[in-house]
C-alpha cells in the first residue's frame, strides 16, 4: 500500500519550563524543564485516522498543539506532504491554519460564548476565503452545518443554548470551514454522553471517508481508538512507547503499559468482579521522569536494567515497534 505520507514527524521535542523567579536567580538554580514531548517519531498516511492514546501527563495534547503551532518546538523536523515545515517562519501560522485544524475536548469552552453559530462560521469563512462574497459565505456556512448534521434553525443561537453534542458539531464545522487536509482531534468525545459520543464518532468517520480527511485522534479510551483508527500510538510521559496497527496493539501488545491500559479498561463483562487493579502506582510527575525506562515505577516485571538504561526502539515487525527491554517475554 503506497499511500502518500501526509505527515512525517522526526525527533520532535517540546519543552515547557517554569519561569525563573528571583530566588532561582539568586541561588543560580537552573530552570526546571519539563520534556512534554520527548523525541517522538510519527508517520501518517493520507486519509488515515491514527490514534494517540495516553493518560494525563503523557504529552498527547502538547504534541498536537505543537503541530498546529501553538506550542513552541524545541527541536525536531516535521514534514508535510514531503516538504519540511519551518515553524519559525513569520507567517507560518497562515499556512498552518489552512492545512491543519483542531477540534477540542471541552465543548463548553471551545466556542466563543458571545458569538452565534452563524457568526462563528462566517468569521472563519470570511477570513480564509477572501474571494467569496457575503451570499456565498452564508451558503457555505449552511452547507457546513448540514455536513455536520446540524439543522439550520440553530444559526442564531449562542453556545449556551446548545447541548454538548451540538457544540462539538459546531466546533467540527468551524474546523472544516477552512477546508483543511488534516484534522487533529483532542479527545473530542470525552466530555459527551455515551449516546452522543456514538453520533459524533460516526460523523467523524463519515467525514474522513467523504472528504478524504486525514485525522490524528487523541483519546484515552481504547475502545474509541479501536472503532476509529487504523494505527495506534501509545504515549507515556512524553514518549511514544508503542506503535502499530490497532489489531496488533490490542491483540498482541508488547509493552507492559499497553497491557496495563488494556486490562484497566472497564469492560461490559460482569464476570470480572474480583480482580486486582491492572496497574499499580501513580503516573510520575513530568518534572521527574524516572531514570532508565520511564515506566519502571509501575511495571510489574522490572529488572535491574530497567532502572539504569532507557530502552531503545525495537521493531516487532515492519509496522509495530515498542520501547521495552524485555518485550519478548510478554
Amino acid at each position: 500500500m503506497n499511500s502518500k505520507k501526509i505527515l512525517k514527524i522526526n525527533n520532535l521535542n517540546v519543552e515547557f519550563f517554569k519561569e525563573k523567579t528571583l530566588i532561582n536567580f539568586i541561588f543560580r538554580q537552573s530552570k526546571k524543564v519539563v520534556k512534554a514531548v520527548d523525541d517522538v517519531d510519527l508517520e501518517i498516511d493520507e486519509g488515515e485516522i491514527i490514534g494517540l492514546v495516553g493518560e494525563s501527563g503523557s504529552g498527547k495534547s502538547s504534541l498536537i498543539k505543537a503541530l498546529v503551532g501553538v506550542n513552541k518546538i524545541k527541536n525536531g523536523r516535521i514534514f508535510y506532504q514531503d516538504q519540511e515545515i519551518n515553524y519559525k517562519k513569520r507567517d507560518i501560522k497562515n499556512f498552518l491554519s489552512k492545512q491543519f485544524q483542531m477540534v477540542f475536548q471541552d465543548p463548553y469552552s471551545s466556542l466563543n460564548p458571545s458569538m452565534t453559530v452563524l457568526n462563528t462560521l462566517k468569521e472563519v469563512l470570511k477570513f480564509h476565503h477572501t474571494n467569496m462574497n457575503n451570499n456565498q459565505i452564508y451558503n457555505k456556512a449552511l452547507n457546513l452545518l448540514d455536513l455536520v448534521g446540524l439543522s439550520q434553525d440553530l444559526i442564531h443561537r449562542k453556545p449556551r443554548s446548545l447541548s454538548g453534542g451540538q457544540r462539538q458539531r459546531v466546533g467540527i464545522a468551524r474546523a472544516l470551514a477552512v477546508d483543511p487536509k488534516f484534522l487533529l482531534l483532542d479527545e473530542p468525545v470525552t466530555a459527551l454522553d455515551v449516546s452522543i459520543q456514538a453520533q459524533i464518532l460516526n460523523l467523524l468517520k463519515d467525514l474522513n471517508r467523504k472528504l478524504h480527511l486525514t485525522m490524528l485522534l487523541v483519546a484515552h479510551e481504547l475502545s474509541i481508538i479501536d472503532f476509529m483508527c487504523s494505527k495506534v500510538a501509545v504515549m507515556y510521559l512524553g514518549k511514544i512507547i508503542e506503535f502499530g496497527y490497532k489489531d496488533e496493539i490490542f491483540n498482541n501488545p508488547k509493552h507492559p503499559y499497553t497491557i496495563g491500559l488494556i486490562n484497566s479498561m472497564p469492560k461490559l463483562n460482569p464476570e470480572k468482579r474480583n480482580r486486582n487493579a491492572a496497574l499499580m502506582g501513580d503516573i510520575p510527575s513530568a518534572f521527574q521522569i524516572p531514570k532508565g525506562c520511564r515506566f519502571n515505577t509501575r511495571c510489574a516485571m522490572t529488572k535491574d536494567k530497567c532502572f539504569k538504561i532507557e530502552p531503545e526502539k525495537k521493531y516487532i515487525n515492519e509496522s509495530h515497534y515498542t520501547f521495552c527491554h524485555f518485550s519478548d517475554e510478554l
Partner: protein
Amino acid sequence: MKLEMINIIKDEYKNFNTNLKIGIIIFFIILLIGLFAPFLTQYDPLYQDYNSLLLPPSFNHWFGTDNYGRDIFTRVIYATRLDLQIGFYTTYVPLIYGVMIGAYSGYFGGSIDTIMMRLTDTAMAFPFLILIIFILSILGPGIQNIYIAVFLVAWTMYARLIRAEMLVEKNKDYIVAAQVLGFGTNRIIFKHAMPNIITSCIIFSMFDFVLNILLVSGLSFLGLGVQPPIPEWGAMVAEGRDFILNAWWISTLPGFFILLTGFALCLIGDGLSERFGKRNQYTVSV
C-alpha cells in the same frame, strides 16, 4: 438586522432585575433633566437678581435662590450637564486605554506583562488625590486640568481587572481555536476575548463614575475644580456652606442630586453584577 437588535434588547430587558430597572430609570430621568435643562426653567443660571436674595423654595423658585439671587433649581439642572459630562469623560476615557494596556499585558505575558505591570504599579503608587492636587497646583485649577490629572492615573484599575481576566481567558479553548484558525492577535484580543471579559470593567465603571463625580465635586469644594460662577454640584455645595444655618437649600439640594446620581449608578452597578456576575449563576447538574 435592526429587528434582531430590538428583539435582543427586548429579551434582555425581561431579564433585568429590579435594581437594574430602578437604577436605569432614575439615571435616565437625570439624563433627561440635563439634556432638556433650558426647557425646564425660564431662568438663566448665571443671572443675578438682587431682589431675590436667599429666598427659600417657593413656587417661583423651586429650589430657592442663593446669596447672589441666582435660581438654585436652574443652576442644579445646568450643573447636571457638566457633572454627567465630567463623570463620563473621567471614567470612560481611561477605561479605553486601561483596558488596552491590561489586555495586551495579560495576553502576551512575559516581558511585556512585566513592563506594563510595573508601569501600573508606578501609577498606582501615587496617592490619587494628592497627585491631582499637585498637578492642579502646577497647571492651575479648571476642568481641563482635572481631566489631564485623572487621565494620568485613573486607568490602572481597569488594566488590572482586564489583565486578571485575560490571564484566565487566554487558556480557554476558543482562544486557542482562534489562534489555530490563524487569526491575528488584535482580532483575538479585541473581537474574541474582550466581549467575554469586559463585564467586570463595565460594572466597576459604574462605581467609578460616581466616585469621579464625587472627586470633582470635592475638588470644586476645595476651590480647585470648576471656578465660579459655573454651576457644578460640588461647587454649589461649597458656595452654600456659609449659609447652612439660615439658607440650607443652597448646599443641600445640589448635594441631594449628587446623592441621587450616585445611588442610581450604584443600583445599575449592582444590577449588572447580579445579571452578569459569574459567581451568581448557578448551574443545576442533574
